[in-house]
């Protein structure tokens, strides 16, 4: 009966279900973009670089510097790795130095890494530049006969850009033909190599290398202050160029092997940070607490990413709050749409309700039928909304939108890759559906209340 009732006024039911559908559709798409972008930021900055947790000396957090480094040995590493929540602990020495080649000088961030372990966290090797669109070779590239005008225009936009793979060239320049990509690859090849475990050389970030006009095989001079004020200086052959997604880091990063960095800064067996990634990011607080309890509090402190990167946390929180307010406004508008439908339905059917109660239907049963009717309409809008939005979410997650122009520049200026991925199916997806159904139930409160208070005789006269 409830099902048939909702189709009595087909147009009204479709309009109500459509308003629910659109609210759900836009709310899910919006939240998915938001959460996807946050996830991507966290992946870029936290999961792929800093780690969810970092072990530091207690004073390092307030005064980051080599003098606040800590002793590092296998026993410490074993204790950390024994925690089942820890996926990997990656040792690092981080400090600043002055880089120089010829007449060019620049302050750089020296990152001493365990070459093998780092492959499992930030994996610099995947960002190793293999192709560079240097002006000198681009004329030969544009001359490839198979290229379309659109592809040539795209290629021109990326002049002087660096790429780690042919796939990336193809994706950015809209080229799917393997033969063309091979030809471009041959013309633009840039053969750097990754570091060995105790390599004497360095990897230099792409923008820094361009600024310093560095090439593979060049020797970089690094000077700085080592542990406890010792002077640090050395010559480092450039093994490769790496492209860091964050433009800020891409302007100043130099990777060297951990033993070489410790030697350079005069701090054997010492680290500035131990970056820790987790098997499950939702266990971050528990693992942080467990490690804190497990280790000597005077010698070590365990910080989570929200503590050592409050800027990212606050920017996500601020944006998230804005998104929630926008979704709430959307829902309030839709709520009043549903509420209007309910009021109209009650006004139209008051006499019918009176008749039903007069001939023996209990108010409780009548209220259930009306609630089921509203639930059907709500479910109809919700299910259709979820069915239509699901493939979009899937595609948006698998093939993120790549931003271009000013927006892309803005993202990059903030240190993030200019992509807008959608979050995959998660709690937020089901929550939107729950919120819509909850709104339907709340909107049904008025008709249910009016049925409960209905005077049969008045209803029959309606």
């Amino acid at each position: 009966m409830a099902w048939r009732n909702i189709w009595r006024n087909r147009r009204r039911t479709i309009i109500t279900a459509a308003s629910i559908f659109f609210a759900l559709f836009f709310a899910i798409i919006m939240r998915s973009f938001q959460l996807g972008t946050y996830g991507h930021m966290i992946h870029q900055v936290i999961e792929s670089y800093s780690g969810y947790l970092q072990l530091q000396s207690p004073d390092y957090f307030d005064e980051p510097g080599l003098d606040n480094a800590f002793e590092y040995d296998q026993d410490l590493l074993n204790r950390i790795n024994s925690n089942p929540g820890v996926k990997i602990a990656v040792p690092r020495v981080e400090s600043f130095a002055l880089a120089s080649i010829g007449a060019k000088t620049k302050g750089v961030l020296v990152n001493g890494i365990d070459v093998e372990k780092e492959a499992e966290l930030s994996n610099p090797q995947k960002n190793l530049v293999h192709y560079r669109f240097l002006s000198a070779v681009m004329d030969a590239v544009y001359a490839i006969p198979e290229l379309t005008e659109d592809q040539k225009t795209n290629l021109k936009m990326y002049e002087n850009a660096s790429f780690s793979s042919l796939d990336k060239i193809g994706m950015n320049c809209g080229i799917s033909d393997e033969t063309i990509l091979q030809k471009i690859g041959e013309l633009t090849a840039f053969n750097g190599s990754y570091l060995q475990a105790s390599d004497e050389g360095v990897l230099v970030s792409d923008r820094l290398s361009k600024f310093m006009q560095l090439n593979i095989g060049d020797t970089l001079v690094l000077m700085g202050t080592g542990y406890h004020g010792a002077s640090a200086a050395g010559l480092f052959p450039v093994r490769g160029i790496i492209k860091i997604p964050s433009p800020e880091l891409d302007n100043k990063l130099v990777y060297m092997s951990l033993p070489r960095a410790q030697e350079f800064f005069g701090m054997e067996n010492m680290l500035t940070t131990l970056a820790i990634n987790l098997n499950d990011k939702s266990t971050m607080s528990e693992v942080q607490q467990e490690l804190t309890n497990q280790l000597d509090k005077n010698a070590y402190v365990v910080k989570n990413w929200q503590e050592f990167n409050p800027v990212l946390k606050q920017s996500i929180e601020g944006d998230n709050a804005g998104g929630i307010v926008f979704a709430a406004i959307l829902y309030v508008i839709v709520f009043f749409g549903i509420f209007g439908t309910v009021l109209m339905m009650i006004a139209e059917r008051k006499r019918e309700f009176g008749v039903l109660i007069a001939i023996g239907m209990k108010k409780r049963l009548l209220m259930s039928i009306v609630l089921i009717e509203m639930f059907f309409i709500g479910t109809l809008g919700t299910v259709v909304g979820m069915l239509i939005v699901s493939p979009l979410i899937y595609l948006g997650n698998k093939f993120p939108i790549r931003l271009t122009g000013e927006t892309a520049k803005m993202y990059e200026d903030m240190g993030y890759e200019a992509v807008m991925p959608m979050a995959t199916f998660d709690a937020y997806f089901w929550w939107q559906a729950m919120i819509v159904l909850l709104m339907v139930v709340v909107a049904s409160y008025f008709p249910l209340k009016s049925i409960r208070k209905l005077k049969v005789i008045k209803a029959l006269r309606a």
Partner: protein
Amino acid sequence: MKVIEIKDLVKIYNESEVKVHAVNGITLDFEQGEFAAIVGPSGSGKTTLLNMIGGLDDPTSGEVLVDGTAMSNLKGSDLTDFRLNNIGFVFQSYNLIPVLTAKENTEFVMRLQGKNSKECDARTEELLKSVGLGERMNARPAKLSGGQQQRVAVARALASKPKFVLADEPTANLDSKSTETLLDIMEKLNREENITFVFSTHDARVVNKARRVITVEDGKVISDERKNGGE
């Protein structure tokens, strides 16, 4: 056997500051199997009287007893249950449920009584055949004429096997032929199933068929006539 006992029934409406005595001290009885019409001009109080007999409206004073049960003692769902099991209603404008077929409308009250499908099907079929709608059982109200809808309403009123049926101006919206058919059906059901019918009406054709005619004016019974063959 008295099915309905009405004792000094009064209903006063407070309209603005003027008190209107819609029913003003009526005392009446209806026996099992009566076919009675309450007549009177508009505003005489016949519909108000019928509503109070059916437990749809509360009297200001006085009492209505149905089969010995005082309606005023019943409230909320107890009163609804009592109406379901004891009283059938036929309304002036049919008031069928538009989304249900003739069969579903008829068996609706039986479903509310918790009867099983087999019982519902048998009784519904029997009733719809007896009101001449055996062939239109699956038609929705919108596909039926006014007369046919009112016949379904009569079948619905009888489906729960009530002690009596209250019909408020049942022929007011019907043409002569439909009125004649409906009255014949109700009279036949009254005779065959010994169900009490109480009508409020203006319609002379209904008055002619009724075996008891109660005339109400200004909320009072001014005459109560039983015709030959009346109980």
